[in-house]
Structure formats: C-alpha cells, structure tokens
C-alpha cells in the first residue's frame, strides 16, 4: 500500500516537472527533430550539431527579434509513429519553429501535427518529392534539393557523359533508395536510348552480396546505379572490383562523402556519385568546419551544413517578418536570401531550395572530385 502512495507521489512530482517546462524564459524555441539513436544516428546527429552551432552563433550575435534561441532536440529513431509522438511533444512543449525531420517518412507523418499547429518546418535532409511537389505541406521548406532533381542529373549524366547503353538499377529497398531508383527509371524511360537491364533490391546490412554482383556481371550493364547508403554501397563496390566485373558504379548522395571513400578504401577508385554542390571554398563553410572540430573534436557529418542553413533561414525570415507569427513568417521565408555555408540560397514557391543543387563527383585518388 505504501509503495502505491509513493508511486503516486513520484508520478505527481514528475508531472509537475513536465508541466513546469512549459513556462520557460523569454526565448524562441526551435525544435530539432530527427534520428539521434539507432543505426541512422550519424545523419541526425550531424544535422543537430549544425542546429546547435547555428543557434550559438545567432545568440552570440544578439539573437532574433531581441530574443535568444533555444534548441529542443527530439529523437524519432527514423520511425513515423515515434515521429508523430515526438512532434506532439515538441508542439506541446512550445516549439515555435522546427528543423527536421531527417527521414522523409517521418517528416511526412509529423508534418500533419506541425501544419495544424501553424509551425514552419525546415528540413535539412528530407528529399522525398511529395513534400514540396504535392502541395499538401504549405509550411514545409528544405535546404536540400529534392530527389527528382538528383534523378534527372544522374540519368542525363549516365546517358550523355558516360554514354552508357545499358544500366542496372540496384537499391536497398528502403524509402530513400528505392524511391530514387524509381525516379531514375522514369527518367530513363522518358529519355529513351538507355536500356534498363536490371532493377533489383537487396537487403540492407546483409553479410554477402555476391549473388547480386554475379547478376550484374551477367546482365553486362555498363553502369550500375545504386540507390541507398554508403555502407551497403561499399560492400557491393568491393565485391564488384574483386570479382572483376566491368561496370561503372554510380550512386546518389547517400554514398557521397568521405565516409564512403574511407569505408571502401582503394576499391572506391573510379566510383561516381551525385552530391550537393561543393561549397568547401565558401568562407563560412571553412569557418564552421573549424568550429565543429573545436566543439566536437571531429569533422562535420553529412547534414551539418544543411542543418546550419535551416536555422539561418528561419532566423533571417523571422527578422524580416518582424514576428514569428505563422503567416508572416511563412510569407517571409519565400523572400529570404541568406549566405549559408551551402552558398547563397533562397526558397522557391514550393518551398524547395534555390541555389543548393547537385553535382556529379568521381573518386580520383581516394577523394570525390567534381566532374561536371
């Protein structure tokens, strides 16, 4: 009996703590929702760090509209149902702007909550087409180009520059990978002149990919396009090289970056990938890399700069609108032009980013080098 009373007391105390959070000081709260645990954690953590550093920078410069910014991180483990709970939590805790989510599926699921609560959402990494193209998400913006743009670039490069006649499309059956390959398939079908000899999905994280590699070999595809992330890509690339399959490997932004070249080592030579425009010469970009190194002791992850740009855009729009009221803020977002680490960017009338596009890279001497 005693223990029950104790439990009730503890519960009441806990709730008191939770409700007390609602009445915090005079700050603007930015919810940073994304995946920060589990196997996709590196992606979410990189973006979250971008948000944190951006908030530090803006606060150091005096904040927005005279108020300081405050980050509220949230973890959705890349699962839509948890993302919805997370979104509800952020909204009830008083988030006024959202940066996130990381996975497109989560963003789609959670945006229903944000839309109803009249909150502007800027995602650093959700690339699914429907988010901006369907028109169902008026409050949504992103600092990364959408999948369709990338698919167009990939397919035209394969046809015009690599002059391939046959291609194999391989994906990891996931939301991002399969979606991208389906878009590429559509592009090829629309262009004509390139034959798709293979369209296959593999199990991500599998210990052995030799069967699919043999299949690619048999299909005699000149180019193998990969939709998925870098770890599986590295396994397939290694096997392709070891089994001496003559095909050019070409992936999307999921395998662009140093982590792929490090992982695949010498086998990565000659691999193509599309990735965000190279902005490493941008002064802000350089400065942020140093800051990140100082604060976290390592180099920035994949979506670090996109995360930073999200906060920049929100802050700039709020200053411009003179308020963080939904309608004004949203309207101001369209006119906002910022000097981000991704270069000067803005947003088009669908909420897609202008100025941060994709380029094609090739691994030469162990480093991705721009080729188009």
């Amino acid at each position, binding site marked *: 009996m005693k223990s029950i009373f104790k439990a009730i007391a503890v519960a009441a105390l806990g709730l008191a703590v939770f409700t007390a959070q609602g009445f915090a000081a005079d700050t603007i709260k930015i919810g940073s929702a994304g995946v920060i645990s589990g196997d996709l954690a590196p992606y979410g953590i990189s973006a979250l760090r971008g948000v944190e550093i951006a908030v530090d920078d803006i606060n150091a410069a005096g904040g927005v509209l005279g108020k300081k910014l405050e980050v509220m991180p949230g973890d959705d483990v890349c699962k839509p149902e948890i993302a919805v709970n997370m979104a509800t939590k952020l909204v009830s805790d008083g988030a006024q702007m959202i940066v996130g989510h990381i996975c497109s599926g989560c963003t789609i699921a959670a945006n229903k909550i944000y839309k109803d609560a009249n909150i502007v959402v800027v995602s650093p990494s959700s690339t699914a087409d429907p988010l901006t193209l369907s028109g169902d998400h008026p409050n949504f913006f992103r600092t990364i180009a959408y999948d369709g743009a990338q698919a167009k670039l990939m397919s035209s490069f394969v046809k015009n520059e690599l002059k391939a006649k046959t291609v194999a499309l391989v994906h990891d059956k996931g939301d991002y990978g399969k979606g991208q390959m389906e878009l590429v398939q559509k592009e090829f079908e629309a262009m004509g002149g390139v034959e798709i000899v293979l369209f296959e999905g593999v199990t991500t994280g599998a210990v052995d990919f030799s069967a699919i590699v043999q*299949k690619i070999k048999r299909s005699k595809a000149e180019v193998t396009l990969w939709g998925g992330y870098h770890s599986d890509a590295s396994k397939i690339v290694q096997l392709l090289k070891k089994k001496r399959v003559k095909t050019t490997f070409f992936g999307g932004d999921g395998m662009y970056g140093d982590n792929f070249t490090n*992982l695949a080592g010498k086998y990565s030579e000659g691999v193509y990938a599309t990735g965000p425009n190279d902005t490493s010469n941008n002064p802000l970009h350089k400065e942020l890399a140093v800051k990140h190194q100082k604060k976290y002791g390592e180099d920035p992850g994949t979506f670090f700069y996109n995360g930073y740009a999200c906060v920049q855009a929100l802050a700039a729009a709020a200053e411009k609108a003179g308020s963080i009221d939904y309608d004004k803020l949203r309207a101001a977002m369209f006119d906002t032009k910022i000097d981000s680490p991704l270069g000067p960017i803005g947003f088009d009338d669908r909420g897609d980013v202008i100025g941060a596009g994709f380029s094609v890279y090739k691994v030469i001497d162990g480093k991705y080098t721009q080729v188009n």
Partner: protein
Amino acid sequence: MRWINILLGLAVAGILGFYGIRELLADPVYFLELFLGGLVRGSIYALIALGYTMVYGIIQLINFAHGEIYMIGAMTALIVASVLGLWGWHSAVIAILAVVFAVVYSCAYGFTVEKIAYKPLRTAPRLSALISAIGMSLFLQNYVMLAQTPEFQPFESLIPDFAFWEPYAHIITSVELAIIITTVVVMILLGMLIKFTKIGKAMRATAQDKIMSSLVGINVNNVISTTFVVGSATAAIGGVLIACHVGQINFFIGFLAGLKAFIAAVLGGIGSVPGAVLGSLVLGISESFFTGYFWSEYEDVFAFTILVIILIFRPSGILGKHETQKV
C-alpha cells in the same frame, strides 16, 4: 496426409531439379559462380550458427546476444589491429594477435553474459531467459555504440590477397576461401570435442538431463560456462573473418547476421553441430540461386519459404532428432 506430403515434396524437388539442370546447361559458369557464392554465404552463416546451436543444445535458450558476441569479437580485432598497426608491428603478427585477442575477449564476454543474464534464470520460465537475452543484446549494442562510435568503420582485411592466388581471385578471393576452410575445420573440431573429449561427454549428458548429470558428478554450471565459452570463440572467429570479407564494421552487424544464423541453425535441426552447417549451406546456396535466377527483393521470403517447407516435412529440422514426447 502423409502421401500428399510426399507427393508435394517430390513435385517441388522435381520442378527445382528440372529448372536447375536447365540453367546449368544454359550457362554453366554463371551457375557455378552462384553456387560458389552460396557456399561462401552459407559458410558465413555457419560460423555464427555453430555457437548458436551449441548453446541451444545445452540449455534450450535462443541466445539472442550471440550476434553481439560476434560483433564484439570483430570490434576487438579491429581495435587491437589498429593499435598494433600504429605501433608498426609486422602484419602477420598483427593478424595473429588480433584473432587471439578477439577470441579471448569474446569468450570472456560470453562467460560474463551467461553469469549475469542467464544463470539466475536457470529455473525460471524459458521465455524469461529469452527476454533477458534480448535485453542483453540491446545493452551490448548500445554499449559498443556509446563507447566507440555509431559510424561504420573500415575493417582492413587481416588476410592479404596473396600474389600467387591473384589469377583465381575473381573466382574466389582468399578471404572467401579462408571462410570456407575455417568453417569445415571448426565444425570438425567441435564435432570431435563433443564426441571424444570428457567435457564433450559432460555436455551431451547435461543437454539430456541436467539433474541426472549433476547426480553423476558433473558440474553442470561449469559445463554450461564451457559451452558458452566455446560458442563465443567460434563467434569471434566468424566475426573477424566476416569483417574481413565485408571490409566494414559497426555496432549493429550482429543482429541481422545472428538472425540469419539462427534460422540456419533451426533449419538444420537446432542443437546439432553438423545440422547447423548443413542448414546454413542449404540456406546460403538456395538464397544465392534465388537471387541469381529470380528477384533478390524476395530473397528472404524464399529463405523463409524453404524453412517452412522443410519444417513441415521434418518438424525438427534436417538433422534434428525427432523427440518422442514423454508423458
């Protein structure tokens, strides 16, 4: 019922055989490549399945944490190899030491996990031990993730690409060859251990009846610990070889590999050492052929279908003993 089953079985075998021979004749090189690929894949499963099956045989526990022991083995090897590499040791010495450390540490982890999470549950309902194992698996994954890194790390192969093997390397790489050979060796050694040594005898006795064996003077706790240690050692060897094969490692690799290996062990008849290897090979080769000739998307569906079909005909797996239930 029985006749229908046999007829169905024959029909399936007939169709598969017909297709198989047709494809073999049509493109023998491709067929053999797929077969070889399947053999490698099967051996990979087998290396993990062996530990699974040993532990299961003795305490009837699905040791969910086995995949994590395998991951820790590979992780230890990576750490040892990198440290020694930086100190500039000879690569052959590094390879040997890395494997030795991986085995020793995996054994220690296996031993400790058993003492913490399974031993207190010896008399509890079997499902409780299963949940405890799941909890342990979750704990170990996150422990490694937090202490090391969530990112994938490259794993430099400890087995070099020998120059003399180069002409054949596109057929089968030296690592793949090592995997197949190791599987066979480990299977034979384990078989001998169980069949001919004193501790093996004690293991068999404990597997049959724990109370009875303790009455005839077997220290059941020690036997179970030994089984965990031996099982973990095979997992560590598997971990190192497989990490060499795929060239990368992170904290999550154990889960998926463990799941597949468990399926393979059940397929072969869980508790039986040759069964685990046979089950793994059947699984690996059939997956490889299915991907090669049909759609790789449905590879796992096919694997499970094979499992269901085999279990319908032999409810205790291919080599499992059919136990008559006692009243």
